[in-house]
């Protein structure tokens, strides 16, 4: 039982004691956004703060929070976007985190953001925040949806009954946001001292008291429709969640999405790469002409080529996140969890594991972090074991390139799709093999929000942020990796670059007994070794190893050196072995279990080798 339910009922009349100290030394006012998951906190945060958000580190909290500095009413203020939570009394990781934050931080204003169309249950959170004595301003978001679904809310009456300011907004479309900002500034300018809440658990209302307080509020200010007037969602669900059609439709949608990205992205990527190559040969190479050949070669053939090859993929990544953002924002992902949970349950996972794996198609790292929503450690570990098999955008780069180089254009898309399928198969096999060792009986209760179509601006914004993130995140790996590969290819000095006498040649030769049976030659071996650091390095590395920066010519060089079976075997191995050092690090820090992490790495290497071996030897056998 939570201690909160035992709290004394008198707490409603006597709000919690707030510790009020002076302003923090920097004189900034502090504003926090509080609300249930999916109520539009982040959307409003972006509206309020513009694009100035950064990840902030708060003392005593292990998780980073999104925060932004801005001027509110002429004074500097710091706005923090808290993770969504259902109940201030709860004990999930996010709920503990938010409570810890409220206890440790003096706040000038708490913006409680509700989804107005679910006001019938979300008002609970306002009552809880009020009982803590926090300085609260209530924002009823999604006013557009509430109206469309047939709710009527009397904001004046609600505000009077609550004793708190209440404003309707629509964060997505901007309606009411200017008024909300004005109200926030007005509240901040009246000089109430900031408060922080000591020992919140003591002052929270129990269920009975909450229900008792909720009923008159709803009666006074809210008229709910007889039944939800969301015909679009009902009709779409009737098709998309149909027992027989639902899953095939889902996979068809995914297939079309990846086909679309491929059809648009590859020409863009080739064009950009070609442009970068022209800039290199016509502008940069003449500039470097005066340098000693070793240094010039290092800068041009090592650094510029490596980075350029990766930079050329930014458009594909942009398209990928554009599409992924659409799927995620639309509400289709939670439907995917619904459709897949039956299968996932039998694999010892749940619908959320499936959704996280889908997010892993962007990048495995946030997907691994997302397992925090799971409480059972068995479920978490098993999810962490399967997520790294998700074909992330860094691996997609390699595959797009190799399939364009070694397969006819019509086959290329099929090759990519087969790798996506293999990625699922690897997850299913892994989960089925190991579910016995990671058992869980965690319940699964998820909201299915109405279908929404993100605005164009939201989609662009999101994709742009992801691309920027990808670039900042991977840049240092790429630079380090490419530099190291170039050095290994050109040292010791005096031997022909990339020949058997160089460091990389020797290393590649040394590993041949292990990798020759799967069709991996010494050059590919070096690329794979560095791919362990990050898959972003693989292509840049290949460009350096084959000393070809122009993607067309690198493709030709690969096609001369490899046959399609070797290339596909290389892709299988690249797909299945450890995605990058970052995932290993995240896995280690999230599981707090070194043995598990080592096991996950070894298992992926073993699975990669066995799969490539089976494939390559089968092809050799068929060829006779």
């Amino acid at each position, binding site marked *: *039982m*939570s201690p909160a339910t035992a709290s004394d009922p008198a707490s409603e009349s006597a709000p919690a004691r707030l510790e009020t100290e002076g302003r923090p030394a920097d004189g900034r006012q502090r504003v926090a956004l509080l609300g*249930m998951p999916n109520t539009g906190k982040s959307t409003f945060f972006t509206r309020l703060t513009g694009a100035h958000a950064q990840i902030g580190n708060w003392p005593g909290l292990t998780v980073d929070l999104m925060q932004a500095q801005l001027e509110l009413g002429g004074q500097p203020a710091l706005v923090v976007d808290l993770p969504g939570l*259902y*109940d201030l*009394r*709860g*004990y*999930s990781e996010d709920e503990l985190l938010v409570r810890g934050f409220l206890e440790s931080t003096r706040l000038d204003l708490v913006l409680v953001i509700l989804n107005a*169309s*679910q*006001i*019938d*249950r979300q008002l*609970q959170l306002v009552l809880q925040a009020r009982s803590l004595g926090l300085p609260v301003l209530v924002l009823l978001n999604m006013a557009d949806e509430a109206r469309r*679904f047939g*709710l009527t809310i009397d904001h004046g009456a609600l505000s009077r009954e609550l004793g708190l300011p209440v404003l309707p907004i629509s964060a997505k479309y901007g309606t009411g946001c200017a008024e909300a900002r004005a109200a926030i500034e007005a509240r901040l300018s009246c000089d109430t001292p900031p408060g922080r809440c000591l020992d919140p658990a003591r002052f929270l209302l129990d*269920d009975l008291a909450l*229900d008792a307080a909720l009923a008159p509020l709803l009666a006074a200010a809210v008229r*709910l429709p007889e039944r*939800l007037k969301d015909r679009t*969602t009902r009709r779409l*669900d009737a098709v998309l*969640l149909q*027992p*027989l059609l*639902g*899953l095939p439709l889902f996979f068809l949608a995914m297939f079309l999405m990846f086909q679309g990205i491929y059809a648009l992205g590859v020409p863009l990527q080739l064009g950009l790469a070609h442009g970068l190559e022209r800039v290199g040969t016509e502008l940069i190479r003449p500039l470097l002409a005066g340098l000693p050949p070793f240094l010039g070669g290092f800068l041009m053939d090592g650094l510029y080529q490596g980075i350029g090859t990766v930079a050329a993929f930014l458009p594909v990544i942009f398209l990928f996140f554009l599409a992924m953002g659409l799927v995620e924002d639309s509400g289709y992902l*939670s439907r995917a*969890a*619904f*459709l897949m*949970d*039956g*299968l996932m*349950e039998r694999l010892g996972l749940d*619908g959320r594991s499936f959704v996280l794996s889908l997010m892993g198609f962007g990048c495995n790292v946030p997907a691994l972090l997302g397992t925090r929503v799971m*409480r059972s450690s068995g479920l978490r570990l098993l999810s962490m074991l399967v997520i790294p098999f998700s074909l992330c955008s860094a691996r997609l780069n390699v595959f797009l390139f190799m399939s364009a180089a070694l397969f006819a254009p019509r086959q290329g898309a099929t090759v990519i799709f087969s790798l996506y399928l293999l990625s699922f198969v690897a997850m299913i096999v892994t989960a089925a093999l190991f579910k016995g060792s990671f058992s869980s*009986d965690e*319940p*699964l*209760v*998820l*909201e*299915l*929000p*109405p279908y929404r179509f993100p605005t164009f601006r939201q989609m662009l914004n999101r994709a742009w942020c992801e691309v920027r993130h990808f670039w900042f995140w991977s840049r240092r790996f790429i630079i380090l990796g490419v530099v190291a590969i170039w050095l290994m290819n050109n040292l010791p000095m005096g031997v022909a670059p990339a020949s058997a006498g160089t460091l990389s040649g020797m290393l590649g030769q040394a590993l041949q007994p292990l990798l020759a049976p799967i069709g991996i030659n010494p050059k590919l071996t070096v690329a794979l070794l560095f791919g362990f650091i990050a898959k972003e390095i693989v292509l840049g590395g290949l460009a350096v190893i084959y000393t070809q920066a122009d993607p067309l010519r690198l493709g030709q060089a690969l096609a001369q050196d490899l046959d399609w079976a070797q290339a596909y075997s290389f892709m299988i191995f690249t797909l299945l072995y450890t995605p990058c050092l970052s995932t290993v690090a995240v896995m280690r820090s999230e599981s707090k279990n070194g043995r598990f992490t080592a096991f996950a790495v070894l298992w992926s290497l073993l699975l990669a080798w066995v799969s490539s071996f089976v494939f390559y030897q089968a092809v050799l056998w068929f060829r006779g």
Partner: protein
Amino acid sequence: MGLPPLGPVPTLAELAVGRPGTILSVAAAAGLTQRLSALGLSPGRNVQVLRRAWWSGPLHVRVGMTELMLRRSDAARIAIEPCESGV
């Protein structure tokens, strides 16, 4: 989680698709009870099962203005009084 499933009382897991019912009680561990209640599944509320997923997957239910999914095993912890007249 810990508690045995409810006995012969009708539960949300067995409620016919489309037929409304009233929640009588929730017999789950404290954490789950709290989460269910935050999502609207608490005694006295009206619920309706919209559909069941294939392969004995989860239920799609509506309670108040909220739609959610939950597993059959968890739904079996929620005792229901089915309403007499279907809608």
